[in-house]
């Protein structure tokens, strides 16, 4: 039975040990250790370990205790590991594995320029992923409101690749068809269709298709046309929006590559 153990560790500060971050890395290098979280109080670190049988918990504890910088160790709790397929899916995407290191400090949410428009802040979305709340996460607008500015990623003290995780959540949302009604998702689809037919993007065609389809389905206020027309007119008159769509030559080659990618599916 898969088992989760919470190990409280007291660090020996007197032996001239390295910085806490280095100790955290050393623990995280152990294959059984899933996450290490600095704590305050009687102990300094909490390691969360996953093993396949309860018997192996003692082995992990011994391994940790054998380190010369460990002054004390206490097994706080041992419990049956609850399967969390949603978390596993996110962890399996490139960059997704960094989610383990999140401390829930909230730097990401404080940095996000669009946090005010999100159903859940970036910090909360990570907490919800960890809690395995697939539906709430994938049907929310949070990742569709991310502008990919990477401010959260640049500032995260734990090097969590939050922007990459947002992109992963968008993909998982599309895979489960939970993205419907999100205008950003509609634009993405039109964008990709353009690549599949032309190889390159023609902005005027893409934008008109986008407004046409969102207005027709009632997802966009038709009055947007009056706001966007002057913008489009100026771009056209300044020769920044060629009407004739550009096309690549070897579209067949690109589509052969994409077809193979579809056949292979996923990244893992």
């Amino acid at each position, binding site marked *: 039975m898969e088992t989760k153990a919470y190990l409280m560790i007291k660090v020996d500060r007197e032996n001239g040990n390295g910085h806490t971050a280095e100790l955290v890395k050393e623990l995280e290098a152990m294959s059984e250790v899933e996450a290490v979280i600095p704590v305050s109080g009687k102990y300094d670190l909490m390691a969360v370990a996953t093993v396949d049988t309860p018997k192996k918990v003692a082995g992990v504890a011994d391994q940790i205790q054998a380190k010369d910088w460990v002054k004390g160790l206490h097994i706080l709790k041992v419990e049956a590991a609850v399967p969390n397929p949603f978390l596993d899916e996110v962890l399996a995407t490139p960059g997704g594995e960094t989610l383990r290191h999140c401390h829930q400090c909230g730097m990401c949410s404080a940095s996000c320029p669009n946090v005010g428009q999100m159903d859940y802040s970036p910090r909360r979305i990570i907490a919800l992923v960890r809690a395995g709340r697939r539906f709430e996460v994938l049907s929310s607008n949070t990742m569709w409101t991310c502008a990919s500015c990477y401010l959260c990623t640049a500032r995260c003290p734990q090097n969590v690749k939050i922007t990459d995780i947002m992109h992963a959540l968008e993909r998982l949302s599309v895979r489960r068809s939970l993205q419907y009604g999100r*205008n950003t998702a509609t634009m993405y689809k039109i964008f990709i269709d353009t*690549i599949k037919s032309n190889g390159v993007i*023609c902005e005027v065609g893409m934008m008109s298709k*986008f407004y046409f389809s969102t207005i027709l389905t009632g997802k966009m206020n038709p009055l947007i046309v009056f*706001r966007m027309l002057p913008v489009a007119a100026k771009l056209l008159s300044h020769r920044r929006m*060629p009407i004739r769509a550009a096309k690549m030559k070897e579209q067949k080659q690109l589509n052969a590559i*994409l077809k193979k990618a579809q056949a292979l*599916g996923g990244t893992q």
Partner: protein
Amino acid sequence: MREYGYFPGCSAHKGTGIAFGVSTRAVAETLGMNLIELEDWNCCGSTPYTSTNELEAICIAARNLALAEKTGLDLVTPCSDCYIILKQANTELKAYPDLKKKVDACLAAGNMEYQGKIQVRHLFEVIYSDIGLEFIKSKVVNPLKGLKVAAYYGCQMIRPECSYDDIHNPKSLDRFMAALGAEPVSFPMKDRCCGGSMIIPELDLALGLVYKLLESAASNGAQCITTVCPLCQTNLDAYQGLVNRKFRTRFSIPALFFTQLMGIAFGIDPGALALDRSIVPADRLLSGFIKVPAA
């Protein structure tokens, strides 16, 4: 002559950012750069593809990387979005061998292969790090003296990582503008988001972001904003009218590519710098700096 593989990207090639592509070509000769455009490149895939299907997205980016590898040169792009997409695909192909295997199989279906030998670089990075400010200074014939510029870095050129500048407080573009003789103003919003392509599906959200940038530049006395990305320029320039209407402001701040300002400082014919593509006109502001060479 320094040689580079060149990936203009859809916008700077013939789209809304065409002035970037045109002015890049115009300054390349003075800079001693030979930009060899990849033959029959495709769209980098941008955020829309990355956010929809990982494997397909990396495959279409990898096709461009494979084309670049054939030239044997590092790949340079002026677009910050293309830059991050191609660079990230390149990094992930190295970091995740299983992913690389799949991508190899897909490329093989199109009779292509990518071994991972090249680097992806931003045009500004190449000019700033390879060519260097001393060389730039030596080529300036019309110093942009007294021109107050807000140097706008945007997001994806400096984040999530940047080898030549501080990602939390970038200064390279300010130094570059100073090298042209211009006066970079303090611009606290210099690395904040313009909304990028989000301006299409989430207009009002993005206009709020553009407003903050314009407000920050204007209140710090900038006469123009200089950008390193075609999306940033389009949002700041083409949507400035909508910002003015939404927020009841009267901004009239030209957004110019750093290559355009560089071209003027180098004494290049302004007609070759595509200044007429700017919607917020820059002619009056720049007329004092343009010296018509004596016939």
